[in-house]
């Protein structure tokens, strides 16, 4: 049993799981926004990055991880709401490339502003738990207390989001506003407010993700920390289907594990190529995602 737990494939699966939940969280944020506003938020990663900076750069002297994390999440929620109210609101009903361009522009603004304030030098974040892998008879299991904390946090976030959407009044209104804005408005749902709430939720999830990424990866926190993670998160969301939260979660974890195997057995440069290949193949076979039930398109 011990030999099995420390074997190479198991190590890959555990390592992949830790990365995969991150991709799942990014994908989940994208899906939340896509479902409610039909906008693919290219600034998702950058917004999360800025929130992490607010939490960990402004409060640096206190260095209490949990306070900083809380501030980052609040910053993310506020930033998400502000973004929806100011930039995104002007884009509803415009041709579908306009929001793409606007969010790419916003990405550029956020990354430049962050670099202007905090420079491009990498900043290492404190970790609340040890990042050293547990040992079994002198051999490492590919799982550290911190990695476990990451997975648990991700699961908690996912469960909270699911509970909010399925069992609360706000969740019902959110779903109604996304499904049919006209009818919802007639029935008394304040659709515009729901769209703002959707952006705030997604952006809050993003902030948690960015903090996890920045303290886990050896890159630390830089203005472009989230670029690569965002690309993988998008690929997960696109493969799972931008309309399907479950698809986002499953494909995020599956991709994380697959990439770990590719990186371990082939070459770490091959990971992004395999990802691109998987994306292309899956989009050609199922353009609306593997987990989306019916193909839909508004003419």
């Amino acid at each position, binding site marked *: 049993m011990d030999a099995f737990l420390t074997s190479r494939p198991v190590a890959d699966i555990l390592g992949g799981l830790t990365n995969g939940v991150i991709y799942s969280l990014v994908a989940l944020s994208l899906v939340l926004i*896509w479902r409610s506003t039909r*906008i*693919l938020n*290219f600034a998702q990663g950058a917004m999360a990055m800025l929130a992490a900076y607010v939490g960990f750069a402004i409060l640096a002297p206190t260095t209490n991880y949990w306070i900083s994390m809380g501030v980052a999440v609040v910053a993310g929620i506020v930033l998400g709401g502000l973004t929806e109210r100011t*930039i995104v609101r*002007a*884009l509803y009903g*415009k*041709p*579908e*490339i*306009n*929001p*793409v*361009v*606007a969010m*790419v*522009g*916003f*990405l*550029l*603004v*956020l*990354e*430049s*502003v962050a*670099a*202007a*304030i*905090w*420079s491009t030098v990498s900043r290492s974040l404190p970790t609340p738990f040890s990042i050293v892998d547990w040992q079994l008879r002198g051999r490492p299991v590919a799982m550290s207390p911190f990695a476990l904390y990451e997975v648990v946090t991700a699961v908690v976030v996912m469960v909270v989001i699911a509970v909010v959407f399925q069992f609360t009044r706000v969740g019902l209104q959110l779903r109604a506003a996304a499904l049919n804005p006209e009818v919802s408005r007639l029935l008394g749902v304040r659709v515009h407010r729901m769209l703002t709430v959707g952006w705030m939720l997604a952006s809050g999830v993003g902030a948690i993700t960015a903090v996890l990424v920045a303290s886990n990866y050896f890159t630390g926190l830089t203005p472009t920390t989230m*670029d*690569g993670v965002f*690309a993988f998160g*998008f*690929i997960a969301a*696109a493969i799972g289907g*931008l309309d399907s939260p479950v698809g986002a979660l499953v494909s995020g974890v599956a991709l994380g594990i697959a990439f770990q195997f590719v990186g371990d057995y082939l*070459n770490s*440069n*091959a*990971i*992004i*190529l395999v*990802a*691109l290949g998987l*994306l*292309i193949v899956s*989009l*050609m076979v199922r*353009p609306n995602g593997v987990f989306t039930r019916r193909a839909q*398109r508004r*003419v």
Partner: protein
Amino acid sequence: MRQRVLVSSVVGVALVIAALDATFGVPTTRLRVALALLGALGVAALGGLSVARTRRDHPLVTRVLVTVVVVVIALVATARLSSNVDTDVAIGAAMTIVLLGLSFLTGSSGQISLGNGAFMGVGAFTVAIWANHHATSPLILVLVLAVAAGAAVGFLLGLPATRLRGPYLAGMTLAFAVAFGAVLNVFGSWTGGDSGLQLPNAENAPRWLVHLYPASTASLSVNSVWLAALSVVSAGVALLLMANLFASRFGRAMRLVRDNDVAAELVGISLPRARVVAFVVSAAYAALGGALWTVVNNAVTPSTYGLALSITILSLVVIGGIGTIPGAIIGGLIYAFANSLIGWITTHTGLNPQGNVASQLNGIIFGVLLVATIVFAPMGISGALRRLWAHRSR
């Protein structure tokens, strides 16, 4: 109508003044004669344009004449500017080619690409790799090879693009832009890994151009004139081809695909074919621009062709005006002089030029302009100018 006459006479007078200035301000008689001939060509083209019947009955001739005027203005200017500015012009003219390609893809067929920086990289590395194995190939062959390589990669990526719309396509091309660096790394023995490649021989000015200048002129400054001229003429050719493509039957079919793809299919346009062709054209243009960059810089580094470049390209197209040829030229001009402008702002606001804020000013300004443009004036500068124009004419 009156405005047209006004504009063409203003351009004409400016051209004559520029030619006179160039003629008497330059060191040798030979160069003076050459510039005078060039200026005369521009004035003649402008004269042809001022005939109303030409504009009405001969659209092809009109496009050729407009291109000649634009190219002549740029060439006369490069002969008089310092060699630093000439290099900026060369870089900007190459960027104009790239912008024309993306403008066609987005403006005509309604697709969006965040991967055009990587397509530029394909062209740039094709030139560098080829030059390192066949040092003596003629330049035109190298450029054609780069365009072919760009078109081939564009075709491969265009195949899945036929089934994707808007945000999905943008995401896929973004993934391509991120993956491009990894591809270069995998083929590190060819591409030189992180440090990139140097060209074995710099592209030097031909003998006839050197002879126009006094013997004491530094070869560097003649070379920069030559490189600028090379880029400007290439941009002119690209511009003319693109203007014809926009106006052709295929260009009109593309716009129908963009505005209403169901209607386009009903009148017999093959959507996949139209989309793949648009993708190939845009990739080929980007590759030509990247190839010229390698020739101008005499070297290529992989970090140039990251995601940031693709985003810059998209910003320039949108700020200039999506789907318009003047928009691509405006975008190219902005790119050529953005660094000088930002340097000017930095010195006049007393920012520390080595500081964080100064180094990020570029991204902040471009990003804000991009968001503001798409929210307030989605057709960009050329669209705004055109609206102003229509307003004035009434």
